[in-house]
């Protein structure tokens, strides 16, 4: 066969490559369309509404109101405060839990992880009302505690900040534990052996090696919890009993009570922008894809 007669299939190969790309795009298009229809368009619509005043004309009054009225500022402050405290409590409870899980043998850890995930499979509303039943004045917790003589008068644990925090921490905990567990699991145990071999006591090895290496997972988990808390509605609405007003609740009342879509949209836009700002700042310390993945650093 002479050199010139050899068929190189150049066009055919390029055609195959192009077809594979289109096939891949075709597979992802349902998801892309869904995102467009239920996310991009509505958010764009809200964004548009937020600039429409009561008279139906273009106006900045919805944003002006947030700056002018102290009550709006307080709502944002409360939202951040509750989110921060919830995140902090989740870290305090979740870190030891994740650490414990990560040290268990694979099979047992898997079983225990299911118990962490179990709440996920129960409706958010059910869990929230369950807390209401447990924590109310004549609820299980108060009656048992008084029967045991822990306290004499019923303690108010719902329709206030305490109830809100208890419920939110319970709901948010898995969001912290899962990425944290993943990143702890990925820490090679030889690192701790090496630290120990080089002279580090178990406590020292934990703080100089394990804790820093679990840092990205902790950061990722905390960020997820914090961001989710910012927009949380059901639990604070039910357990807060109107005493703890977060942005999402104000948005709801703007629509349900005042039928003011413009004001609600503007708050939504501000909350969205604040959340994006936080994620942007965080992304400078952490690659964002770690939020979705195991959080391994």
């Amino acid at each position, binding site marked *: 066969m002479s050199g010139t007669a050899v068929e190189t299939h150049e066009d055919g190969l390029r055609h195959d490559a192009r077809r594979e790309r289109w096939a891949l795009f075709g597979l992802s298009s349902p998801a892309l369309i869904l995102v467009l229809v239920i996310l991009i368009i509505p958010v764009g619509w809200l964004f548009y509404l937020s600039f429409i005043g009561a008279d139906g004309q273009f106006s900045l009054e919805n944003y002006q109101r947030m700056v002018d009225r102290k009550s709006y500022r307080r709502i944002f402050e409360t939202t951040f405060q509750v989110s921060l405290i919830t995140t902090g409590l989740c870290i305090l409870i979740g870190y030891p839990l994740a650490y414990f899980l990560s040290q268990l043998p694979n099979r047992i850890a898997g079983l225990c992880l299911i118990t962490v995930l179990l709440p996920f499979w129960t409706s958010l509303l059910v869990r929230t009302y369950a807390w209401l039943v447990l924590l109310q004045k004549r609820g299980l917790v108060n009656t048992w505690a008084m029967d045991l003589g822990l306290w004499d008068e019923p303690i108010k644990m719902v329709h206030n900040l305490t109830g809100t925090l208890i419920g939110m921490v319970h709901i948010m905990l898995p969001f912290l534990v899962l990425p944290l567990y993943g990143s702890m699991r990925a820490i090679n145990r030889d690192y701790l052996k090496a630290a120990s071999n080089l002279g580090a006591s178990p406590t*020292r090895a934990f703080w100089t090696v394990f804790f820093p290496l679990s840092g990205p997972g902790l950061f990722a988990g905390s960020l997820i919890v914090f961001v989710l808390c910012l927009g949380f509605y059901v639990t604070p609405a039910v357990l807060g009993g109107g005493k703890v007003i977060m942005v999402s609740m104000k948005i709801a009342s703007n629509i349900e009570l005042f039928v003011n879509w413009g004001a609600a949209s503007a708050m939504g836009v501000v909350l969205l922008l604040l959340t994006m700002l936080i994620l942007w700042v965080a992304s400078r310390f952490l690659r964002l894809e770690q939020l979705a993945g195991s959080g391994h650093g």
Partner: protein
Amino acid sequence: MSQDESPHPAADALPITIRGVTKTYGAVHALNEVSLDVRSGEFLTLLGASGSGKTTLLMVLAGFTRPDRGSVKFGETEIIRTPPHLRGVGMVFQNYALFPHMTVDGNVGYPLRLRRVPAQQAQERIEQALETVQLGGFGGRQIDQLSGGQKQRVALARAIVFEPRILLMDEPLSALDKKLRDRMQIELRDLHDTLGMTTVYVTHDQREALTMSDRIAVINHGRLMQLDDPTRLYERPANRFVADFIGDSMFVPVRRRGDSVYHGDTALTLSDPIPEADALLLLLRPERLQVLDDDPDPAMNRFAGTVSNLVYQGDSYLLYAQLTDSVEIALRGMTRRDTLDTLPKVGDPVTIGVHADDTLLIADED
């Protein structure tokens, strides 16, 4: 080699005395009554297949595996119940276990920080350790910027920077490619000779063990099979397992009649006394065999056979010969221009000889 004859006796190296160390996992003996003395300043290798217990023994020395019973002394001090961080031994891990969140300096300086060495002095020692492993100037690098060989050296620097009197190494070269591994073997051995610390080295690679060690402890099924220097281990294996495990080995059944040992009807010429055992095997190594012409040398044992296969392997060739009693043996010869042309062909009759000194008898047990 006795302790006094150690090539570089270091004043502060420590001997290790292991007595009756046993570790079971369920019904499996990972270590079965292992007793072993590592001499001060010696390079001793634990050699065995995977699952033999060699790594378990190293982990017992490091303190990461708690044995069921036994005694381990560093020098005069019993350390069997001492937690790992108080044992003061250096260790190089199989996958280096370098801390990914620290720089090279951070890693090497870690044991010094724990020992509260003043910063300036620590920096000097870090640099000195890095110089020792030929990584001077690499202190500021991140761990993930290093090649496999460089990580290996950093791990070594970290293990020696606090001047431990005992150094443990767990298959430290297994992740490197062959060329680098060959070079690192020589370097590690040189480093050991310079620093003089007692070294216990774990490997499954017999060539590595033979290359580097003062003595080799062959471990199988949690038991010590033989402890000897490389030459004796290869030339005079104590049992069938060691004979089979080290080097290319062929076993030919032989019979004992009175004071002689016969292969077929031919009495073998022997240099060593005959082992006390009912069944005997003749151990042959391919490189110790040669094709004989008719010149009768009384020091040679001769085996008649037919060439069954001839394999060219570049630097050497393998000639397989079918002996009359249907046992096949292989002979390895170097390929030189003159031998290549005169090699027998498949089907040719051939006489294979082995010197009496290389005619080893092994008890057929196991």
